[in-house]
């Protein structure tokens, strides 16, 4: 992409920088009332990582309790509350806002060549709505916990003595934050693109965030009304989900999964976007199948609304409906496979640089592929009857959510770390961290496929002795994974105290975020950039062009 950032080009190694967004204004208040998308991205980043830490520690407690078949240090009721909060916090406060709200906020306007998102004040409001939601979750945690599982299935959720109303209110409020962020991003992509930034010149991360935003806007309102109905059901007892009062509990499952299955793609699509960027930049090669990858994100967004029934294969829906949902679920495999094959084709004969970010991209290709492929047996009606509600399902969605989204998120943090913080981390430390995460993750969850296939049901605090060996392997794996994540936290924090500053473009990227200094100035670019080509035209491809875009 030959881009003209300003009348004078920015030399990435120039030490005469201007005041960046981190130092543009001083004091705590300047952060609390900021409308700068980059600062909001950083604030979201810190908030989601805080909840990742809390929910991660809960997971370690769960795995440690499962080290022996009998009760160790948690009662059944405590165990129920811990796995519920682990799931609910991970889903509503970490993974849904993780890539879109944190990285999307930081990168989207930069990648589009805009000064900010379309509605900066709405963006700040989204952050505060998210904060209020997290207060509700913390209140639920302190006020009797929650033991329904993150899915709030009725009729149990209308009878449970725990803080269901507080927690569902928290999820309800978090939903509005998600809706407003999605709405903001859609309008930003439509209206804020720099001159020359046509739809087919947008980085694939932007396409992925756009498809995600469409799902956020269209699916989340249904979750809102569902959770509202749960609250009303508990407060007024209207009985719409309660069979004892003439209602239908399966109706709740339809309502819930109509949102929550598309929400799975809210979680994974942004991860796809990160991987598209990582693979192409670090293999110095134009992405294979740009349009196919871009449109497959949209295709996944569309199909995601038509597959919710595969969560109800054993809930008593009709056989015909089950067959249709099974078929539609298989259909998701097509656009997903298009992405995976395009990434592999991009690597083919590329000049691959094996740095930390690329390691994460490679780890993602393995873990996500395992996660995606194990979805196929689950979408097969007859096999699902055997595997439903077992550890096989647990392993499957952890391979997609952790092996997919979290690995991509961490890879993305490394890729854009210099841009966000202005500091570079230690590559060797980064690779050690990636290796620990990869090994720890696979040891933890690969084992659970076998456990589930042998019949270990999910959500139990105790189990039969024959499962003990595999449970112990899984638990040790979770400790390795936790060690890896703490290791990453330590060297990333340490990097902030580096004296040397990150160059504007450490990886030789072409998309617009690399055309401004690291960290960027408050208004991103001195002058609105003009865009003349693809974000993946690396100079190595066209030897006649220098890296610093011809003028």
């Amino acid at each position, binding site marked *: 992409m030959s881009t003209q950032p300003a009348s004078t080009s920015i030399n990435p190694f120039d030490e005469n920088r201007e005041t960046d967004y981190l130092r543009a204004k001083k004091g705590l208040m300047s952060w609390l009332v900021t409308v700068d998308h980059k600062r909001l991205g950083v604030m979201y980043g810190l908030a989601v990582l805080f909840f990742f830490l809390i929910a991660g520690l809960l997971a370690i407690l769960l795995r440690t309790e499962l080290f022996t078949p009998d009760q160790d240090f948690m009662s059944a009721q405590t165990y129920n509350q811990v796995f519920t909060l682990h799931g609910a916090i991970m889903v509503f406060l970490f993974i849904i806002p993780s890539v879109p709200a944190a990285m999307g906020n930081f990168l989207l306007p930069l990648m589009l060549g805009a000064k900010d998102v379309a509605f900066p004040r709405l963006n700040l409001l989204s952050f505060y709505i998210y904060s209020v939601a997290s207060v509700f979750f913390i209140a639920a945690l302190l006020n009797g916990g929650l033991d329904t599982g993150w899915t709030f299935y009725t009729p149990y959720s209308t009878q449970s003595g725990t803080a269901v109303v507080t927690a569902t209110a928290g999820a309800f409020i978090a939903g509005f934050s998600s809706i407003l962020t999605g709405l903001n991003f859609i309008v930003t992509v439509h*209206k804020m693109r720099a001159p020359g930034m046509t739809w087919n010149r947008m980085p694939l991360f932007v396409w992925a965030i756009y498809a995600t935003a469409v799902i956020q806007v269209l699916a989340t309102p249904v979750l809102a009304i569902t959770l509202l109905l749960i609250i009303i059901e508990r407060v007024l007892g209207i*009985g719409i989900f309660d069979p004892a009062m003439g209602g239908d509990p399966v109706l709740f499952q339809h309502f819930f999964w109509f949102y929550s299955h598309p929400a799975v793609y809210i979680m994974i699509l942004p991860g796809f976007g990160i991987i598209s960027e990582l693979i192409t930049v670090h293999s110095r090669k134009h992405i294979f199948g740009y349009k196919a990858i871009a449109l497959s994100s949209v295709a996944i967004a569309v199909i995601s609304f038509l597959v919710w029934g595969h969560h109800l294969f054993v809930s008593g829906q009709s056989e015909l409906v089950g067959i249709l949902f099974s078929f539609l679920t298989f259909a998701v495999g097509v656009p997903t496979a298009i992405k995976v094959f395009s990434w592999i084709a991009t690597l083919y004969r590329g000049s691959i640089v094996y740095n930390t970010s690329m390691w994460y991209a490679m780890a993602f290709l393995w873990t996500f592929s395992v996660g995606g492929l194990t979805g196929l047996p689950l979408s097969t009606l007859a096999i699902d009857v055997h595997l439903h509600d077992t550890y096989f399902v647990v392993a499957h969605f952890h391979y997609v959510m952790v092996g997919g989204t979290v690995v991509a998120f961490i890879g993305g943090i490394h890729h854009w770390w210099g841009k966000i913080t202005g500091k570079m981390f230690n590559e060797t430390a980064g690779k050690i961290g990636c290796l620990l995460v990869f090994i720890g993750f696979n040891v933890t969850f690969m084992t659970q496929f076998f456990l589930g296939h042998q019949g270990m049901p999910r959500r139990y605090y105790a189990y039969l002795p024959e499962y003990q060996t595999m449970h112990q392997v899984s638990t040790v794996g979770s400790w390795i994974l936790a060690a890896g994540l703490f290791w990453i936290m330590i060297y990333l924090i340490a990097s902030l105290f580096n004296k040397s500053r990150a160059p504007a473009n450490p990886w030789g990227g072409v998309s617009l975020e690399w055309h401004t200094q690291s960290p960027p100035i408050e208004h991103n670019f001195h002058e609105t950039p003009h865009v003349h080509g693809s974000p993946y035209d690396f100079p190595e491809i066209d030897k006649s062009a220098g890296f610093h875009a011809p003028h």
Partner: protein
Amino acid sequence: MSQAHDHAHGDDDHNPFLAHHFDTMGQQAGAAKLGMWLFLATEILMFSGLFLAYFITRMFYPEMVLEAHEHLSKIHGGVNTIVLLTSSYTMAMCVRSAQTSNTAGIKRWLLLTMGCGGIFMFVKYLEYSAKFEHGMLPGKYYSAHLHGYEIDGLPHIFFGVYFMMTGLHGFHVLIGLAVMTWIYIRANRGDFSASNYAAVENTGLYWHLVDLVWIFLFPLLYLVK
């Protein structure tokens, strides 16, 4: 190659209502309108959950719904329908006034619209009071049989759905009244003109949606056959 983005925005550069991150008033208004349409889409989806709940209730218990709906006041519902339809007209005239930089018109039509909204809420109050008095309440609070009204089946579900739908709709009317008050204050300040009326237009779009939802609620709840 072309120079960095031009500065030829003409008068827009001097418009005090142009936010720093937009290049032109047209871009700003386009963004605001697209944002509003997306928001309206989320509203429709949120209400669609309740409509689905309504249809399932009606499918499960057709006779009960038919019998229970007889206790809703067609007069109150009908009056409110006419009031809301009128308010959509006054709202459209308000937007028209903004487009022609007629500040006095904005304020006059806005007050009329708010008046209609007020009448709607007053009628709603009368209607709800009657339901409360007759014990026609949602779920476990349903006690109409103690007040001499016998409805066969499970009418507490119908009244649950009725109060959820009309309650959420009434809440939207109240939000609309609050937003219109804010728009009135801004109009009074002289914020709106032919070059800056996106806020008035968006308020209008929202109000029309509130009207539209009622257009569906009225026949579904009050005119069941």
